[in-house]
């Protein structure tokens, strides 16, 4: 437990510039438009994040043209993205898919992700934390066939990394979705800022990236990194919810005094502050330990996911409730946070799933 859980000066500086960038590119009015079918906010914001600050390659090794940062710094970006519910495929492409490709040693493909011109996605349901008993597409003679439901991060994807079975052997196949043999059906999603799609392959031509144990460990590394970084997104989201709720209850008067002076509300916000602070410690711990891999990383990520996902939902729910009627409106951004938090709760394994896995680690076998 000796991990450094604080933010470094470099990380604080990074946060400041990311926050300024997102304030300009992801104002809540524009993010809300994603629910009414305007997807331009996603591509505009993605361009800004990847071009202006080269964030897409932040966690990629310098030898591959990236920023060479560790997950600690990437986690700070995730917090900021969570704070504005940024509708961009950073988690799915810049974290999960990138980590899978790095693990496969697919250096040429990783290089294409650095400047954000290529966007990759690991085609598994967003709820997946391990491949377990998923029904996967199959591959034969270099052609992939099958369907995958509820995949997030497809909207801008130019490269799909498809876990596919060759007989009983797991493989990872690279597919360019533009070809006619791949269909991407965007679904009307609970969280339109990270919409899910159903993906179908009909004898889609593919290039094999890895197979067997290599493929398994690449997927595991990607999802583990995803779990760690998602926790930081949840911290950022929860932090915004708490801050906006505190600010609102200070200025909203009823019964001749600010509603934030009522103890019933103060205690709810104080408890939430404790939870958000604890979530931050758990998320920082996961961000520090995830890069090393191994059991310690798995426990740290499991712990962070088992804790942070519920805290984000609690924060968003408290935000709606303590804002009263205004929190229920389309106009107020609280709903963006509630929808993202609730979707995040089932993403990459529910808290209950992570608790089961952690319990298995505790029981001597």
């Amino acid at each position, binding site marked *: 437990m000796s991990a450094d859980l604080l933010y470094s000066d470099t990380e604080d500086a990074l946060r400041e510039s990311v926050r300024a960038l997102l304030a300009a590119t992801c104002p809540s009015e524009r993010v809300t438009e994603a629910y009414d079918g305007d997807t331009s906010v996603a591509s505009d914001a993605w361009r800004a994040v990847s071009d202006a600050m080269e964030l897409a390659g932040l966690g990629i090794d310098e030898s591959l043209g990236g920023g060479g940062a560790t997950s600690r710094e990437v986690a700070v970006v995730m917090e900021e993205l969570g704070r504005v519910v940024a509708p961009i495929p950073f988690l799915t492409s810049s974290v999960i898919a990138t980590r899978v490709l790095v693990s496969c040693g697919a250096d040429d493909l990783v290089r294409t992700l650095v400047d954000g011109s290529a966007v990759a996605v690991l085609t598994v349901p967003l709820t997946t934390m391990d491949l377990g008993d998923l029904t996967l597409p199959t591959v034969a003679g270099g052609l992939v066939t099958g369907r995958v439901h509820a995949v997030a991060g497809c909207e801008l994807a130019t490269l799909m990394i498809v876990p596919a079975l060759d007989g009983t052997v797991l493989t990872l196949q690279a597919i360019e979705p533009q070809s006619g043999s791949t269909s991407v059906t965007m679904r009307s999603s609970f969280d339109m800022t990270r919409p899910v799609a159903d993906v179908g392959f009909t004898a889609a031509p593919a290039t094999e990236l890895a197979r067997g144990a290599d493929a398994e460990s690449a997927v595991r590394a990607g999802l583990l990194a995803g779990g760690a970084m998602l926790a930081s997104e949840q911290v950022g989201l929860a932090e915004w919810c708490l801050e906006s709720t505190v600010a609102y209850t200070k200025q909203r008067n009823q019964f001749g005094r600010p509603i934030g002076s009522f103890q019933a509300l103060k*205690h709810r916000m*104080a*408890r939430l502050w404790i939870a958000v602070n604890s979530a*931050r410690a758990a998320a*920082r711990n996961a961000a520090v330990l995830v890069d090393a891999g191994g059991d310690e990383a798995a426990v740290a990520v499991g712990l962070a996911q088992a*804790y942070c996902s519920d805290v984000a939902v609690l924060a968003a729910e408290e935000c709606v409730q303590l804002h009263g009627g205004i929190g229920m409106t389309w106009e107020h951004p609280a709903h963006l946070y509630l929808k993202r938090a609730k979707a995040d709760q089932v993403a990459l394994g529910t808290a209950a799933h992570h608790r089961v896995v952690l319990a298995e680690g505790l029981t001597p076998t």
Partner: protein
Amino acid sequence: MSDARPAIDLAREFIESWDPATPREESLRARYDAGLAWVAQPAGLGGLGCAPEDQRGVEAAFTAAGFPDNNALANGIGLGMAAPTIFAVGTDEQKERLLRPLWTGEEIWCQLFSEPGAGSDLANVATRAVRTGDGWVVNGQKVWTSNAHNAVYALLLARTDPDLPKHSGLTYFALDMRDPGVEVRPLRQITGEAEFNEVFLTDVFIPDTDRLGDVNNGWLVAMTTLANERVSIGNSDAEVEQTMVDVVERTWRSAPESTRRRTRDRFMSLWVDAKVADLAAARMKQQLEAGKPGPEGSALKVTFARLAQELSGLEIELLGADGLGYGDWEMVRPTIVEFTGRDAGYRYLRAKGNSIEGGTSEILLNIIAEKVLGLPPEHRPDKGMAWKDSPR
């Protein structure tokens, strides 16, 4: 003055020349005089003026050598609260006189803060100290005083000027518990034990040389004491003590009840919360070390209390029939209190106090809401009013 050589070298040298046959108290006094008691404190007062981090290594060296310890757990208030206060506001004479026997454990300390009418509203203290000649005469009643039956000294908060508003008319003293006007009566609690006491003070004399800090500045001194409560000096014992989750995890592994899915999930939720609380505590410590202290200690205590209560409650359920026993209800007056000690029934009952002692969870949540989140303060009708006129 600070010795250029590392504290750990001096400690090893000291241990080498120490004869294990030396009586306990003499050994401890010698260690104090060598500056190896709390190494971060100034030379001449049990320290070497070096970095607080050095304490851990020194402590480990003494433990490894089988050196007698100062029974820190029996003097938690002395080491954790009285010592930092004396270092902060004590006169040179007070430091010289009080700190050595405090550290060696020869003089146990207790804290005379709460009163029947001053619990959460601590500043409402009514115990009076009236100036007389070269000292003060004290009359009043204190309550919930842990360890009063073992203590030689007490930290006393008393009212010296009732014409001032309640926070302004208080003064802080070191009170000699051997004074004939001090009567200590045990208060039995729900565990059957009597950890704490009522203390009646009748014409107790305190020489002015035992006043800690300025007259009518007691509230500020008391706040220093409370802020220091969790930053213990020269005591690493607290870190090795087992936590409630460790205890209940052991029970959980062997309890048949834990195979039920719902029980498992309940335990794992608490386990996750406890592990995350450890991380939050580690993060707070790092913030303190980086010089960014915050009121996070209040948050940790709220979490700690909730977890101790829920975990100890679950443990009885896990034990089923075995959870129906209770060691015994005999009224003992313990010297050391271990929240994780005795049996599951005791742990459950004792944990109920965790959200009351040292600031109720409700008061701590108020502190977080007002000091951290900046929410508007509670309505306080007695604000600015002379204490003697305030509603009570």
